[in-house]
């Protein structure tokens, strides 16, 4: 249990640092902004309690907000994503798998499952984030296009990061 907490704390710090140091400086045209820190929410264990899941969602978002000077923006989007997570898990997982210990991962659940799971949650996160950011529905398709491209980029980076950790 203690080990698990340490591992997640390490993952949290690693992902925030990666986001702030590398991905925030990575500007692939104006359309693609990968936000890979959401991987932290994706990888939390199945049996996590609701209040902890939401709390961690808010904490993750607030931390990123602090670095990006966007207080409230990432927190509300990440919170929304954390809220949706149990429903998406329910939707995609068989009854037996839910009883499983551990956390969602590419090795256990398979590549296709993990891609589906990440795509849906990352899309919902980016959708709320980019629309909160532009704070209007003017330029709806412009924003939607940013959401779609960034979702694909984020998911791709998350898959790469996952496959890197599997080897170890």
């Amino acid at each position, binding site marked *: 249990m203690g080990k698990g907490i340490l591992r997640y704390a390490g993952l949290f710090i690693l992902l925030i640092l990666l986001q*702030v*140091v590398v991905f*925030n*400086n990575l*500007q692939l045209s*104006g359309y693609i*902004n990968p936000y890979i820190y959401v991987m932290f929410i994706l990888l939390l264990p199945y049996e996590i309690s*609701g*209040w902890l899941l*939401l*709390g961690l*969602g*808010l904490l993750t*978002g*607030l931390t990123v907000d*602090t*670095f*990006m*000077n*966007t*207080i*409230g*923006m990432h*927190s*509300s989007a990440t*919170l*929304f994503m954390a*809220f949706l997570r*149990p429903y998406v898990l329910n939707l995609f997982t068989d009854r037996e798998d839910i009883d499983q210990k551990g956390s969602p991962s590419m090795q256990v659940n398979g590549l296709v499952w993990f891609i589906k799971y990440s795509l849906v949650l990352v899309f919902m996160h980016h959708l709320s984030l980019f629309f*909160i*950011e*532009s*704070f209007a529905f003017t*330029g709806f398709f*412009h924003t939607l296009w940013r959401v779609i491209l960034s979702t694909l980029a984020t998911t791709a980076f998350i898959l790469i990061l996952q496959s890197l950790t599997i080897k170890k």
Partner: protein
Amino acid sequence: MNSLLRFLVKNQFVLLFIVLELFSLWLLSNHSYYQRSKFESVARSVSGYTNSKVDEASSYFNLSETNKVLAQENLELRKQLAVLSSKVELLTEVVGDTITDSVYTYQPARIINNSVNKQYNYLTLNKGSNHGVEVEMGVVTNQGVVGIVAGVSPNYSTVISLLNVDLKLSAKLTRTNHYGSLYWEGGNYQEVTLSDIPQHVPLSIGDTVATSGFSSIFPENIPIGIISSYNSKGSNFHTIKVKLFRDFKQLYNVWIVSNKQKDEQDQLEETINNS
């Protein structure tokens, strides 16, 4: 009462979500650039520190580009110096004027965090209140306006970028001296919009746009960009697209401008507005 409790317990997850989401939306709505809370000033110290560390490492990759820009800037400053010193000589000879001190003072600063891909872009500079930076000072380069200081902590300051849909500047056409308001529409980061130039003003593509000097923040005649296209349909005013001289992605060294007579000007204008 009992059923209310049962309802609360049963839906605690959804209710907690709603409460937290309202909290973060409240944070978001209170986040405007003139009323920053104490929390953010602490946050800025922390994030400023990390950003400056990141910047120290990444600055090496830009050295050659920075050198080139600095050399260019030096050259232009030398040219200006030559022109100005001859003028000053002339002045002191003819009038004997001793008040040749400039109204604006400049202070160099480095950008340690920057973005161009959001709707509300901010920059962070490595100078803060310890170096005399105050809110509402202007930030410029030799080829354009960068933004306005929005908040300061002892060692860092945040700047609302020109690429922030909240920012509006007063700018003019250098050829005709007509002024209008300049802002970013949130799309292409190399293009801003100049509006409120009346229909009768003849325009041509390639005309230079510069600061008007009407606000007390920026000096006059800082070049901003050139007209890349304009649209005059259906209104009394032109809508002009201005291509910026400087690529905001390459910004590195900037100048913080302070106007020594800003308070005087603001106070005077205030008294007129109030009476």
